């Protein structure tokens, strides 16, 4: 397809940073063992590329759709690229998040962590660039190449410390489920081409599918992208792979890669299929709500800080998918203004989760470097030796817990507003179900607060649980800059929602034809449904809260003239206080284990009265793994054993096989 140079201009702008990422990656091979070269030069350059990409993505939003054909790939199958508002938005997300992560990574990667820094740099940048290509691809072939490149490069990053058996198995599980998902996506594209055998997205848009085929394509896409997004029950790789990867990579995977799955689902349902049937939304909503709930309760019982965050990612992706499901229901029923509201809430949550979860993952990286410890049971009191990390992480924690005036709250607010329009839905049955959905979202948000208090309180507050924690080193300057970038993004997204929604409106208009009506009546006041009088002004909120707090401080200072003394903690007069008397991570999760017992597979080892060294141990396992995956694994192994009988290892036997096959074929032909 010929394109005019003008149409390709925006795309060239997007391609340049991606190509630069590729080059930076290759440059890492020049001096693969030099931490200085890779860390001080290449990664900061990469952050600049991210900034450029975010800028190009943002400016492309208002422009017409750009298309381009790259003359690479197989003969007669060139790569088609296209940049519309949806791609532009996700490119901005990728670019902006990668700035913080790359800055942090510049100070993070050191020697002695498995692969050489230069090699890591190559894998890291291929990962970044492939995510960009996923967002730009405009035919199934280019999409699958980029998608697989993303999966494989991240697999190598996950298995950076490949000498540890558990990391190898985590990587394998990740690769396996990524490929199950990829097969489903491939099949979905196969259905989508609708008999034209043209695999460009343009021809898929043009294809008219019968409802049952459209449904098949949608379900396959949901399976494929759901596997990448970590939707329950395809979530099992996530709590294994995220902790195994180095922290900047966990941040990229959780913050950005999971969002490519959201992008893919949006692309297929709203763009390629030309809009969903309303009951598809019900499926997405149910899966999303269940994932959100399942993720958050499992997050609450984790004892490894990165695993806890991984479960929290499952929760957040569940929330995003619930918003998407709601948008599909509204859109399918022809209520496009409400669909826009739910869609914008969902996209907003994508941005929020990208910033705040990356921030938290990077923070765990700083903690890991400062202390060498990932187990919550061996941390504590780090706010004293690591004040920078602690205070910046507090922003991320509040954002994930959806507290005003930070960003998480804005998307929660928008989503709940969308849920509150249930009474206008013309299906009584849906009318009854949606309030329960709103209730589950409210419950998950409140539980997220619980998880985050546990996460933050146990790592940063209290007494250090190990003696060497007092000497922990705070984050280096580059690491700090990365954290500050992401924390600032969290605050900005929380305080200026109207501006963000102005941007998201163009995405919504491009995708479903409508946006929010007049979102920018006031630049400081978020009022998406002005007729209903629902309004939230985070800036006013923040300013008034700050003024009240400062006035209280001044008032107290004016009237209070007493001294402040430091003394040992009182603790009701108990004197021999030590670190083991605080709540452990297990202890903090205990109420959740108790209340939601049916969802967990709990094994307890209880001490008896006669034990010399009494041990109490409790492990919490995932029922889905035990009763879903392990039986399948057994069956596969059995089949493998049966097939192994054929393998004798003797050449004569194999010749016999060939001979028999030949005879059978001859018999068939003759």
């Amino acid at each position, binding site marked *: 397809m010929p394109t005019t140079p003008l149409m390709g201009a925006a795309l060239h702008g997007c391609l340049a940073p991606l190509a630069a990422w590729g080059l930076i990656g290759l440059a890492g091979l020049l001096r693969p063992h030099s931490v200085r070269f890779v860390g001080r030069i290449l990664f900061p350059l990469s952050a600049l590329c991210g900034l450029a990409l975010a800028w190009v993505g943002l400016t492309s939003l208002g422009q017409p759709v750009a298309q381009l054909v790259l003359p690479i790939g197989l003969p007669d199958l060139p790569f088609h690229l296209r940049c519309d508002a949806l791609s532009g938005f996700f490119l901005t997300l990728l670019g902006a998040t990668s700035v913080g992560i790359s800055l942090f990574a510049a100070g993070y990667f050191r020697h002695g962590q498995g692969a050489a820094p230069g090699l890591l740099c190559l894998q890291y940048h291929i990962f970044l660039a492939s995510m960009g290509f996923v967002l730009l691809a405009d035919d199934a072939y280019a999409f699958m190449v980029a998608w697989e490149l993303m999966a494989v490069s991240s697999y190598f990053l996950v298995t950076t410390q490949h000498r540890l058996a558990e990391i190898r198995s985590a990587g394998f599980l990740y690769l396996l489920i990524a490929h199950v998902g990829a097969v489903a996506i491939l099949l979905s594209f196969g259905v989508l081409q609708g008999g034209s055998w043209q695999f460009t997205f343009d021809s898929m848009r043009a294809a008219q599918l019968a409802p049952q085929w459209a449904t098949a394509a949608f379900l396959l896409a949901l399976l494929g992208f759901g596997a990448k997004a970590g939707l329950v029950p395809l979530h099992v790789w996530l709590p294994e792979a995220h902790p195994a990867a180095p922290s900047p990579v966990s941040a990229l995977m959780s913050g950005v890669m999971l969002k490519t799955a959201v992008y893919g689902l949006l692309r297929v349902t709203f763009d390629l299929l030309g809009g969903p049937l309303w009951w598809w939304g019900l499926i997405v909503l149910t899966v999303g709500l269940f994932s959100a709930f399942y993720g958050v309760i499992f997050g609450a019982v984790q004892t490894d800080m990165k695993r806890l965050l991984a479960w929290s990612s499952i929760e957040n992706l569940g929330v995003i998918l619930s918003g998407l499901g709601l948008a599909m229901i509204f859109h399918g029923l022809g209520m496009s203004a409400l669909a826009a509201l739910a869609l914008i809430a969902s996209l907003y949550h994508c941005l929020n989760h990208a910033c705040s979860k990356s921030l938290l993952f990077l923070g765990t990286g700083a903690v890991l470097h400062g202390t060498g410890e990932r187990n919550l049971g061996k941390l504590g009191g780090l706010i*004293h030796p690591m004040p920078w990390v602690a205070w910046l992480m*507090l922003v991320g924690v509040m954002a994930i817990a959806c507290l005003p005036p930070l960003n998480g709250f804005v998307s929660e607010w928008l989503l709940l507003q969308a849920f509150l329009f249930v009474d206008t839905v013309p299906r009584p049955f849906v009318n009854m179900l949606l309030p329960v959905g709103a209730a589950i979202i409210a419950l998950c948000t*409140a539980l997220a*607060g619980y998880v985050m208090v546990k996460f933050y*309180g146990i790592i940063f507050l209290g007494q250090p649980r190990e003696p060497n924690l007092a000497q922990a080193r705070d984050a280096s300057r580059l690491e700090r800059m990365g954290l500050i970038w992401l924390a600032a993004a969290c605050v900005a997204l929380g305080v200026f929602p109207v501006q963000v929604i102005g941007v998201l409106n163009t995405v919504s208009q491009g995708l479903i034809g409508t946006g929010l009506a007049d979102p920018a009546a006031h630049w400081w006041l978020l009022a998406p449904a002005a007729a209903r009088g629902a309004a939230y*002004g985070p800036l006013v909120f923040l300013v008034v809260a700050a003024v009240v707090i400062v006035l209280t401080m001044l008032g107290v200072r004016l009237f209070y003239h007493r001294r402040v003394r430091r003394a040992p903690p009182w603790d009701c007069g108990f004197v021999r206080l030590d670190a083991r008397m605080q*709540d452990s991570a297990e202890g903090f999760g205990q109420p959740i284990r108790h*209340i939601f017992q049916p969802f967990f597979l709990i094994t307890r080892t209880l001490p008896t009265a006669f034990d010399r060294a009494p041990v109490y141990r409790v492990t919490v396992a995932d029922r889905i793994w035990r009763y879903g995956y392990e039986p399948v694994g057994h069956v596969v192994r059995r089949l493998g054993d049966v097939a192994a009988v054929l393998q004798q290892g003797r050449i004569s036997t194999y010749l016999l096989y060939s001979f028999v096959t030949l005879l059978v074929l001859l018999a068939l032909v003759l």
Partner: protein
Amino acid sequence: MSPLALTTQVMEITAAIVAAPLFLGWVNQCRAWLQNRRAPSILQPYRGIRKLFHKDAVLAERASSLFRVTPYIVFGTMVLAAAIIPSMGTRLPLTVAADSIALVGLLATARMFMSLAAMDIGTAFGSLGARREMMIGFLAEPALLMVIFVAALISQTTSLAAIAERLSGATLAIYPSLAFTAVAFTLVLLAENARIPVDNPATHLELTMIHEAMLLEYSARHLALMEWAAALKLFNYACIGFALFVPWGLALERQGPAGLMASVPILALKLMAAGAGLALIETVSAKLRVFRAPELLATAFLLAVLGMLVHLLLGA
């Protein structure tokens, strides 16, 4: 922004700050009478706060700055909440800052800071209190949101002032859904404000306490602010209840200054009735074991969801 609206706003904030300890004193007085004790003066909470402001502050050696700023943040958020809740009039300039969902978020922020500060020193009591508070919180918050959703669906808005205004306009209509949610709200109020049957504000017994366990390490001005904030929280919850379930008597815009003047004694009457009712509930019920509290709050949650379904089924 009209001068009347501004006056209402200022009066509401001042009234909340001043009257919150009085309301607590009134509840304590009623409780004492119901239990055949001689009641302390209604000013007793003030005396307590005054006494605390005259003492040297003792901080634990390990206390971080998070521990020191938390009392101010908690007090500030409670004052902000009082500014948003329509306790006297419905024309409040600050209601644009936050609707009822944001109000719930605001209360959650205060809870989170309090829990984090409780974990800061690293005592057994502190983390126990924090854990229990968050447990009660994650059960009570969705219930409260559902209660608010029912009122929001009835009045087609999430702004608390507008909800109160619309509900007070319909004097004769009776909403069965609101009856369910009123019960749910009462349970949430008891749990969130550390009252019997969930928590006992009068004891420091380790097996039972939640709220007090978090305050153990505070002293002097910090403790005074925390206590004051707790009183404000109770006052705020009472006013949320009034706005949702008995909104009559709030000054509407058309009533002018006279309406605002009339709303003050009405608020006082409502508070006296609510305080007496709270004391009665606390006297006739027994403290629950901590692990019974989730059942109580699950009941509240289900009642609120039921209220919503009733509303959607009956349209009322």
